[in-house]
């Protein structure tokens, strides 16, 4: 097995195993240094960010909303974690030459052409459906997939099977015939 691939990428097995080490270190550190143990997750931050955005136009509506009240519209550990993902990915891609401005993803282009408008429509509609589902399921591939399955949670195992099962089914029809890059 190669540790490093041709284009400067790390083997997904190696990079993934290091994420496992990071998940353990993060659990140890948050248990020692904060009020409670925190597990990696990302999708709740989108609820809080949506809450912040809505607050600028309708603060009373956000205050009255049961879901925003439950999840609390605040900047917390996970919010900074998600901002950190941006910084870490920028650091990595800018230092190994893999940073690349891209208008439309290659597989999408092979199937639907280079129109940014069409891609925007797909991404916005897909994103809205996916996030609605993630909130209903109470987690995304980070919270349910990584953190849930690491703990052998029944909900994490079932959720990942649903995520992937539905993804494989729909992708089969949506990207039929497109080349893979």
């Amino acid at each position: 097995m190669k540790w490093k691939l041709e284009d400067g990428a790390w083997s997904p097995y190696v990079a993934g195993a290091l994420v496992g080490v990071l998940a353990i270190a993060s659990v140890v550190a948050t248990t020692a240094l904060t009020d409670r143990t925190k597990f990696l997750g990302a999708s709740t931050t989108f609820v809080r960010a949506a809450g912040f955005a809505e607050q600028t136009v309708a603060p009373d509506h956000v205050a009255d909303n049961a879901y925003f009240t439950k999840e609390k519209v605040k900047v917390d550990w996970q919010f900074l974690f998600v901002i950190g993902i941006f910084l870490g990915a920028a650091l990595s891609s800018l230092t190994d030459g893999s940073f690349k401005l891209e208008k439309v993803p290659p597989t999408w282009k092979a199937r639907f052409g280079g129109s940014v408008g069409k891609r925007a429509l797909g991404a916005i509609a897909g994103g809205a459906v996916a996030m609605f589902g993630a909130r209903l399921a109470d987690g995304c591939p980070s919270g349910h997939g990584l953190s849930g399955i690491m703990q052998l949670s029944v909900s994490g195992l079932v959720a990942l099977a649903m995520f992937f099962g539905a993804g494989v089914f729909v992708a089969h029809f949506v990207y039929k015939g497109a080349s893979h890059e």
Partner: protein
Amino acid sequence: MSELLLGLLTGVLFGFLLQKGRVLRFDKQVGAMRLMDMTIIKFMMSAILVGMVGLYTLRAIGYIELSHKPMNLGGVIIGGLLFGVGWSIMGYCPGTSVGAIAEGRWHAGFAILGMLLGAAIYAECYPFMLKTVLAWKDFGKVGLPEAIGVSPWIVIALFWAGTIALFRWFERMKI
């Protein structure tokens, strides 16, 4: 304050590793769903194999308690299926979308916009969901070892064996 700094530092390391593993790409995510390129599955399962042993060890020495998300039947199944449908078209998950913009794939911004919209819509529908889908059946916060009455270490050993076999198959199929 240390809590926020800790979150930021953990996120930077996570984003760095996601980028090095090249799992932030639309084409890698959709490639896995088309069963053509299993990079993201290799990455995710490797993280899980390592993390699982660490977390169960931390629990065994009494340092932490596990925190299972509730196994709400309607929520996890309907929500999980909806997530999968949206994921296949968007080509990102919540965590990777943020990293994808950072490596120059600025179209991931549309995905983020869509997800913020989805979160806002869900917030409006939450009371209705509580009365319907989320009210069907809740099995509570349960772990697989407790659910089947087996030592977690046996489950972990079987999980490792199955995943290693899966990895070998991926490599043989060159996917």
